[in-house]
């Protein structure tokens, strides 16, 4: 369908380029990585050997897991909210697409009617 007005084409480009949703667990992954980064940054700044020895201790792993978990627990709560928001975004994206399709079909029908009218008038 050719766009008669540049403005109509720009609107179509805007619709085509609506934001895409990331995977539902994207935020959780980012926060977990940030927590791990934080844990790694706060590790003692001593020599390599000592750092390796420290990381071999189960207690350190437990602490690191605890920090990650502490970062993740709030995300568990926000994960539900995020999923709901993800659903809402997806629903709204589908709604807008459905309305676009409906609009296109109505416009096509009108154009067809106009064409037939012109042919009948001739």
């Amino acid at each position, binding site marked *: 369908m050719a766009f008669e007005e540049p403005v109509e084409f720009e609107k179509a480009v805007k619709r085509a380029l609506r934001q895409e949703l990331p995977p539902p667990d994207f935020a959780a992954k980012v926060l977990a990585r940030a927590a791990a980064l934080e844990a790694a940054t706060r590790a003692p700044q001593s020599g390599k050997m000592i750092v390796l020895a420290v990381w071999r201790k189960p207690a350190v792993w437990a602490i690191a897991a605890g920090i990650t978990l502490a970062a993740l627990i709030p995300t568990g709560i926000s994960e539900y909210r995020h999923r709901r928001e993800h659903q809402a975004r997806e629903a709204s994206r589908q709604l807008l697409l*459905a309305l676009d399709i409906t609009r296109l079909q109505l416009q096509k029908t009108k154009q067809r009617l106009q064409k037939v009218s012109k042919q009948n008038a001739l």
Partner: protein
Amino acid sequence: MKNILIMALLALPLAAQDSFDFKTLDKLGTNSKNHTNITLDGDMLKLASGFLGAAGGKDATDVKNLVDGLKGIYIRSWEFRRKGLYNSADLEPLRSYLKQAKWTRVVESKDEDDLSEIYLLPQSGGKLGGVAIVAAEATQVTVVYINGSLRPEDLAKLSGNMGIPDIGSQLGNLKNAEKNTEKHKEED
């Protein structure tokens, strides 16, 4: 070639749809190369409308107003590599349903291989109980089924700037036909 598939958000049982069973149109897609499937029931429409409403803006408000009274929006579309790969008789289940459910065909337009039909379900108070569009072209078939309460002016907004004066005049005819029917009933 990549199939463009928009998955239904929910698989709706017939009872929940309170309307047409789209499974009866599945035959149309037997030889299709692409198909589009959008199913938005009341809950999903509310979710979407709430989300859009929160975003603000005139467009979002218009969409929200349009969607608020709706029970469902269903889109099915199939694309074919060439003409002759679907049987238009496979659309009859929908046409039969619309006829028996008292929908009125307000537009029928045929141009070579292309056929468009628009059905409206009149409601009291000058509103509509639904809009259905059946568009059968050489290499594409599209069905739009909107169920629920909407105003004719919302339908006009949906068609964009071009408007649908034909629908408007058809609606006028419809209203007059209703009035005449009521008048005849009184006279009988």
